[in-house]
């Protein structure tokens, strides 16, 4: 998956354009860097005080030089800015009729919703050769949707929709990283991206549709895909949220000191409306899951199975 110490292989046209700009800046930077460092080292070696009384010449400045080293860097920087404008425009303007993917960040997983309503978590499959438009938002704090090989990054901001488009031509596997610090599991907020040929993609999508219809049957699968397990353990170990081991039917102490029994009603409320009753020692950071009744039931069944 690319090199570990330089830009990863650019895989879209857009990424290649970004890299061209990157290399232009790099050439300029290398030249200026060498100029400054060579002058510095030369002066350090060449102009040394040879005897204690020695003084330098009383030169106070030079207008011509002053103008030269103001104008040249200014010119170079203006050129860099100007050649980046068309690229900014390209990034800004998604092609018409793109396939739109709704991306939602949440602590600490990524949700992807396709135009036909199919939803996946932490796994994004995309067809090659199609224009794609990501519409990005967040359901809690700020995250940032970053695909390094694609050179695209946009923050996922609650209450706001950011956009970025891409088009990829080869099948491959990549990783979405969260680039904006978002709390305990920020560094684990990763999603897999798999780009596939049209026919494979269609086959996969059909399978997903079928699964979606029958979904709710498997609670264990649901909690995995929903990302619940990034905060809840099933083996009794400490984590960001209370463990599920032995939870069903147990006595739970709430923040205000009262206790409740973890029956079905309580557990359901805690899933769809987590802020209603917060367990003592934990904070109210869980985002409500949007589930149908069948799915809730499946999860409840799974929770019971952990006793």
């Amino acid at each position, binding site marked *: 998956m690319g*090199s*570990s*110490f*330089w*830009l990863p292989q650019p895989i879209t046209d857009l990424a290649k354009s*970004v890299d061209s*700009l*990157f290399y232009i*800046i790099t050439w300029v930077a290398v030249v*200026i860097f060498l100029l*400054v*460092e060579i*002058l*510095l080292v030369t*002066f*350090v070696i060449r*102009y*040394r*005080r040879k005897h204690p009384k020695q*003084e*330098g*010449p*009383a*030169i*106070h*400045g*030079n207008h011509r*030089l*002053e103008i030269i080293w*103001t104008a040249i*860097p*200014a010119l170079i*920087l*203006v050129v*860099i*800015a100007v050649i*980046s404008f068309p690229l*900014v*425009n390209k*990034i*800004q303007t998604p092609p018409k009729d793109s396939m739109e993917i709704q991306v939602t960040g949440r602590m600490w997983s990524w949700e992807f919703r396709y135009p036909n309503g199919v939803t996946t978590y932490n796994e994004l499959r995309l067809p090659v050769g199609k224009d794609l438009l990501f519409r990005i938002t967040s359901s809690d704090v*700020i995250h*940032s949707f*970053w695909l*390094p090989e694609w050179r695209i990054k946009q*923050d996922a*901001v*609650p*209450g*706001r929709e*950011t956009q970025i488009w891409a088009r990829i031509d080869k099948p491959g596997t990549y990783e979405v990283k969260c*680039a904006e*610090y978002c*709390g*305990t599991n*920020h*560094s684990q907020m990763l999603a897999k991206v798999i780009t596939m040929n049209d026919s494979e993609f269609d086959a996969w999508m059909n399978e997903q549709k079928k699964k979606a219809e029958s979904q709710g049957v498997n609670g264990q699968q649901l909690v995995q895909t929903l990302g619940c397990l990034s905060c809840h353990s099933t083996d009794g170990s400490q984590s960001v949220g209370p463990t599920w081991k032995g939870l069903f039917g147990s006595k739970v102490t709430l923040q205000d000191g009262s206790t409740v029994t973890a029956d079905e009603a309580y557990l359901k409320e805690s899933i769809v409306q987590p802020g209603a009753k917060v367990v003592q020692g934990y*904070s*109210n*950071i869980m985002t409500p899951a949007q589930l149908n009744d069948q799915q809730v039931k499946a999860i409840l069944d799974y929770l019971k199975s952990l006793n």
Partner: protein
Amino acid sequence: MNTSMSRRSVIREWVFTVDHKKIGIMYGVTALFFFLLGGLAALIIRTKLLTPGPDVVSADTFNQTFTLHGTIMIFLFMIPMLTGFFGNYLIPLMIGARDMAFPRMNALSYWLFLLGGLILIISPIFGAIPDAGWTAYPPYSVRSPGAGIDLWISSLHILGISSILGAINFIVTICTMRAPGMTWNRLPLFVWSSLVTSFIQLFGIPALAGAITTLLADRHWGTVFSVPSAGGDPMLYEHLFWFYSHPAVYVMILPAMGIVSEIIPVFARKPIFGYRAVAYASVAIGFLGFFVWAHHMFVAGMKVDAGTPFEISSMVIAVPSAIKIFNWLATMWRGANVYTTPMLFVTIGFLGLFTIGGLSGVYAAAVPVDMHVHDTYFVVAHFHYVLFGGSMMGVLGGIYYWFPKVFGKKYNETLGKWIFWLYFIGTNLTFMPMHFLGLAGMPRRVYTYDPHYTLFNQIATLGAYMLAVAVLMMIYNFVHSALRGEEAGANPWGDAQTLEWTISSPPPAHNFDTIPVVTASPYEFGVSEWVKKEQHSIQ
């Protein structure tokens, strides 16, 4: 009886002092103490990052550690060191004044700084440690449980008041208390840069204060500044925050640049090249600094081309920095350079490394490239090259340079050079690999990372340990020299010309027996080749 007497006099001498020099020293010692704490946090971070997995500390502790590290280094070390120590100690001496304009307010600034700092660093004692990064973006910072963020906000508010009082004091002092003959064109360049810095503080801090007040209000008083479902917007905070915090990076570099401009001419025995260009470049940076803030927000939710004006202004602000670099190089050109420890720090150190930080800023300023490098280790490398490679080199060069003045003793030159090289190599080992990690795809502020990146992280950690050794050696050097060093005399560098070198080391309480009359710029070094030197000093 004896000890109680001396204790009382210590209190009278230091706690109740309104002498700018003593206040400056208190600022310096306190800031260095905070620097050690911030450095300790950095070592914890780097030790964790030796390995890719969850290790050493928990994820939450890690997040709290980098939050404390950033906040301490910026607000409790770099800003107070440059303005509080160097500014306070040097400005009245350099302009030929007996003290600051408002000596009591000056003392208040220091005590508020100490209070603000303590409020932040006692947070671990109460187990309520801020964990939202030094930028504290909402909604995360609003939702973060416990009192950690509240302590963070209170601390910043108090530090802000301290800085505003300090800024007013500097501005009034520099404008009204210059000795006769100290015209604007004879003002030492460090004083120029401090004047600009003070204006930045005065105009910028209210924006920061407003920003963090919205956090406090959202957290406790049910307001909705950052709650979109009720009409708020988290980006409001980002704009306000960067409106101050971008100019704040110039608060952390301009005085260091001033230090560089003082030190190079003395050891080159040559006038500063382009005095006016260097002075006006500071003014330009201070002014332009208020027009670039949104370059921290290119991918934060603005339309992509809304970044364009900020890309242009960010490119423009790189020019005055470039001007200074060339002027310093031209000062070294044909100089009678002697490489004492301070000269090493400001030439090979500052000039050599700040250049790298300035150039990596160009990548971050180009919108399309920033889409990739933003919020990665590349940006971490960038700002450490300017802050650690730049500002910190200036600070250390400055400490070595004025050490004999402050303590009246010479430091150990051989040890100083060893420390410089250790420090220089450590800085590059630590921060150079971070450029490559960021380009390759490592986000910043991560507790775990892809095992791919292990080698470069280990190199960085090795560098950090080297820096720790350098810092310990430096403490030894300073303490030992302050106690045992050779007498320095008034002007140990022979011919340094700013006014502080005309009086004894350390200076008497009232600074000048008679207020000096200034007749020339402080950079009249060198032998005239074709014009008589006298003619210069007449003008």
